[in-house]
């Protein structure tokens, strides 16, 4: 692997983040803080503890996950969609670089951004609720794996999308509902038995559950199931990207 092209793409993408600081960092942090204020402080005081964790603290991992998933997808999708839209992708495709290098550059930058965002939100949440992190290594592992996996998914969406509307379609219509229904704000034990079973078909449940376990040692599903699910996602995304580049799908006629 030649590092110069990877670095060029990575640095250009990070420069784009700096240019769009308001949209890419400030705005998600503020909107997450609003959740903390409303659900954590205002309503949360009226909700009883869940498994010995105050409601305000209980929702922190879920909220970080929500931002991590939506931001990873929209960052990475925009990063590759924009050159495609403006036509400047000709340069990427005519450069002497492998697909792997392209993906590492774009997805690496998008994931870095999401990880940074996740950590900032984590710090911010500390102002609203007392935080404890039972398994910090696992926490970071989940954070990084989720950021990378969903940035890969975003990259795929960016290549697939042929208009700005489709770019927003997946984060708004798929990721956000799945995260809201994926136990970000509640423990799935609180659902009627039938809906508990249905919920298990939602992949985000496994991500939120594993991530929450790394904070408080409580989970809806087993740690192994969470890890398996995220690795499954990762593999599926990588396989899709490999297929995209092999066939030139929506990149090379």
């Amino acid at each position, binding site marked *: 692997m030649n590092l*110069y092209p990877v670095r*060029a793409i990575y640095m250009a993408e990070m*420069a784009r983040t700096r240019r769009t600081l308001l949209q890419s960092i400030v705005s998600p942090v503020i909107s997450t803080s609003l959740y903390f204020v409303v659900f954590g402080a205002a309503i949360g005081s009226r909700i009883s503890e869940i498994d010995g964790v105050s409601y305000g603290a209980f929702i922190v991992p879920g909220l970080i996950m929500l931002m991590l998933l939506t931001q990873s997808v929209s960052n990475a999708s925009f990063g590759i969609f924009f050159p495609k839209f403006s036509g*400047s992708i000709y*340069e990427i495709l*005519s450069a*002497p*670089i492998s697909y792997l290098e392209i993906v590492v550059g774009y997805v690496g930058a998008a994931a870095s951004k999401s990880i940074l965002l996740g950590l900032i939100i984590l710090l911010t949440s500390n102002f609203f609720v007392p935080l404890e992190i039972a398994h910090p290594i696992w926490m970071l592992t989940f954070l990084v794996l989720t950021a990378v996996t969903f940035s890969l998914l975003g990259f795929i969406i960016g290549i697939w999308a042929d208009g700005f509307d489709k770019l927003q379609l997946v984060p708004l219509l798929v990721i956000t509902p799945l995260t809201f229904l994926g136990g970000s704000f509640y423990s799935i034990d609180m659902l009627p038995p039938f809906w508990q079973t249905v919920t298990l078909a939602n992949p985000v449940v496994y991500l939120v559950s594993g991530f929450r376990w790394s904070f408080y040692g409580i989970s809806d599903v087993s740690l192994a199931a969470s890890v398996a699910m995220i690795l499954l996602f990762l593999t599926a995304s990588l396989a899709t990207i490999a297929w995209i580049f092999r066939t030139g799908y929506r990149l090379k*006629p």
Partner: protein
Amino acid sequence: MNDPIITIEGLNKTYEGGFQALSRVDLTIQRGEIFALLGPNGAGKTTLISVVCGLVNPTLGHVVVDGYDSVSHYRQARERIGLVPQELTNEAFETVWNTVSFSRGLFGKSPNPAHIEKVLKSLALWDKRNNRLMTLSGGMKRRVLIAKALSHEPRILFLDEPTAGVDVELRRDMWNVVRGLRDNGVTIILTTHYIEEAEEMADRIGVINRGEIVLVEEKAALMNKLGSKQLTLQLHTPLTVLPAALEQDELSLAADGYELVYTYDGRQEEEGRGISALLTQLEKAGIGFKDLHTRQSSLEDIFVDLVKERP
């Protein structure tokens, strides 16, 4: 001179939907030459370039760049190539300096600010280096695209319609840069549908139409063919046949005998015939004319003929 830097063999490209953009294209580009690819819109010029640069997958055939197959050894092939696309595309919010440096990195070269500076200066972009691309005029954007292509010191430069919508000054600057590159041994392939451009710049000219290479010729040889001129004399009284004294290959009657057409190039004059001799002969034969005009057939005429011939 036979030292090919690009060899294209049996290249076919059929797009999804069945449109055949290239059909059995064989073409060899010599090291260090300026090759002009001429053709009408939609002839396949851009597709041909795109296949060589790796933007379009060929349906059949292959391309060898400086000894490296463009598909199996794409790294070696592509790092030798700089591409200036036809469309003005760029990352609107980047500065000139950043986008040109980015291109260098993308092509796997270590940072070299001195080289970037040299490129920007040669294209009169140095003063604009900290400007965002979206604040630049169309001509400046075109210069940036050229700078990006030169940032990684390519051995081969593709210019796809470089002068479309470009003013005279930029055109002149650009040709100076191109000549400078050629002097440094860079091979240049340009597509255009402006024939003067090819006449002015190219060593060899290829004509492509409907996805097929119709002709490839040294410019000098082509210009000889094109160098022919026509003198048309409008006669007072129509002739039915040419007087025997005037009988020669170059002379013919047209417009029901009202016009006498003389086709010539440099040769006749050298042989002591030529226009003045003809006029003397006409006077002797008592053929009067009321008007005359000459016309030089251009590359354009031949080009139009070549392109028309094919249904």
